[in-house]
């Protein structure tokens, strides 16, 4: 463990952690979630969730990585051998996410180039589903590889694996030192342009206008916790792995505050930019903002290209900036996701970094081919929904419950963080993690199970959801358990 790589500087670590947290969800999920859950009033539950769940879990994961100086499975093993499988489960989830996340980044990369000639034309929906993805009619069909998706996907994987091959300091840190400032500058330019568009005020009014009744609605609070949980890259081993490369005397608590606030600050900026642009579009079309509000893939690849068509000047440039921002935000997150299982496999099986990158990263790259097929979008939609709601959320819930109530590690971890951090953790931290977070995440989980029992996700056929939704979630859990068993045998053999 003496040879464990380290971040060159504290700034390098913070940029990498923020680069991981700031991803596509910040740009295309947060604005719609805030708008649908009380607008301006949503900021109260959102900030409450940030301070009582987001930052406390970040502190927890930073402390675990720093204290045990190992990736997730290694850290869990050092905490208590019995729970090593949770670490492998987290890695298996990261593996699945990396497979489809690379595809979305590849779409954004393709659209960055399409934007130069506004190649999507007037009917952006037909262009995305028909001309670009050449989507099959029935979910579950593969329909052959789409070259326009496959080629950028190869580029995304090549960049990701090359960065990881270069290592922590020369690869991840050096890349994030360039990518994150570049993302901030590009996005800032985009937001300045957005708020100066005609109609921007209409969008901002709709976005920030507080609906105070909403804060008395429990669902709004759950949505706030969900947004914080899914946007901070917590729960699936990334932050544990990144913190394991910190030097021994690094501050933990303040680093977590910086990461949490930076992520929220970027989300707020994205909300301002997105709703200014939606206000402009609503004005152009003579409709209300609620009729143009969208999120996810639809917002990025259908609504935004429409808006780029409508811009008075420099349409191509702003299209390029928007999709370029998506690529940068996505790539820095993708690098962090792949690093978790590259590091885990490297450590456990005693491989060199290059071998681990090639084997585990290479396998993920090959498997991601499924999402570059004509049926890829359907697979991506189902896998993404189930792995988020029943993978990340469940393993995150397990993480806090096991640490707080089974291994009883909260106090020792608090002592470790307090010994090296400026901000000392009080009993509030243990209450947030031991009581509040499990209650909210547990409720979220039960509610999601109820919803999915009552109706099939997006009305897909049952066999499709069973295999690619529930099936993937169960297989990922089993792979986690299986790997912990293989790993244990190898560990015993190697002494």
């Amino acid at each position, binding site marked *: 463990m003496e040879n464990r790589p380290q971040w060159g500087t*504290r700034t390098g670590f*913070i940029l990498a952690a923020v680069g991981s947290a700031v991803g596509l969800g910040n740009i295309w999920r947060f604005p719609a979630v805030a708008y649908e859950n009380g*607008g*301006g*009033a949503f*900021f109260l539950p959102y*900030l409450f969730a940030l301070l009582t769940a987001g930052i406390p879990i970040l502190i927890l994961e930073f402390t675990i990585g720093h204290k045990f100086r190992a990736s997730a499975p290694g850290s869990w093993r050092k905490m208590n051998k019995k729970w090593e499988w949770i670490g492998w489960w987290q890695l298996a989830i990261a593996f699945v996410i990396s497979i489809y996340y690379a595809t979305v980044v590849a779409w954004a990369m393709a659209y960055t180039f399409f934007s130069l000639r506004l190649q999507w034309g007037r009917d952006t929906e037909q262009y995305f589903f028909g001309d670009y993805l050449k989507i099959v009619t029935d979910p579950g069909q593969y329909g052959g590889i789409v070259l326009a998706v496959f080629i950028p996907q190869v580029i995304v994987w090549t960049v990701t694996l090359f960065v990881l091959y270069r290592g922590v300091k020369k690869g991840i840190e050096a890349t994030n030192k360039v990518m994150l400032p570049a993302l901030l500058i590009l996005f800032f330019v985009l937001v300045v342009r957005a708020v100066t568009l005609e109609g921007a*005020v209409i969008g*901002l*009014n709709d*976005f*920030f*206008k*507080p609906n105070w009744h909403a804060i008395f609605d429990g669902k709004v609070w759950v949505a706030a916790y969900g947004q914080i949980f899914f946007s901070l890259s917590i729960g699936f081993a990334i932050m544990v792995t990144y913190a394991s490369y910190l030097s021994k005397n690094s*501050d933990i608590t*303040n*680093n977590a*505050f*910086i990461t949490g*606030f*930076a992520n*929220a*600050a970027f989300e*707020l900026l994205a909300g*301002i930019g997105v709703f200014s642009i939606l206000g402009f579009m609503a004005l152009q079309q003579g409709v209300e903002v609620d009729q143009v509000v969208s999120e996810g893939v639809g917002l990025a690849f259908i609504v935004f290209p429409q808006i780029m068509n409508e811009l008075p000047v420099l349409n191509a440039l702003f299209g390029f900036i928007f999709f370029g921002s998506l690529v940068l935000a996505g790539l820095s997150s993708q690098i962090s996701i792949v690093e978790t299982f590259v590091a885990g496999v490297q450590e456990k099986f005693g491989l060199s970094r290059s071998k681990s990158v090639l084997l585990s990263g290479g396998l993920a790259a090959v498997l991601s081919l499924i999402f570059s097929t004509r049926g890829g979008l359907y697979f991506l939609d189902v896998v993404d929904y189930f792995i988020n709601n029943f993978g990340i959320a469940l393993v995150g819930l397990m993480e806090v419950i096991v640490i707080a109530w089974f291994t009883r590690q909260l106090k020792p971890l608090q002592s470790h963080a307090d010994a090296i951090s*400026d*901000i000392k953790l009080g009993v509030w931290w243990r209450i947030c993690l031991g009581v509040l977070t499990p209650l909210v995440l547990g409720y979220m989980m039960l509610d999601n199970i109820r919803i999915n029992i009552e109706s099939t996700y997006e009305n897909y056929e049952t066999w499709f959801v069973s295999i690619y939704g529930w099936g993937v979630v169960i297989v990922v859990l089993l792979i986690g358990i299986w790997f912990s068993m293989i790993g244990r045998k190898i560990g015993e053999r190697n002494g």
Partner: protein
Amino acid sequence: MDTDAITMMTIGIIMVWGGLAVSIVFAIRKEKQKRNDN
């Protein structure tokens, strides 16, 4: 812009960007202190 919307936007910006600024200032001071100690 609507007064309530401006108020909420200002509160959001102050709390989130303000929180970030305070944390960064705190970190810079700590790093300076560390360098002086060395």
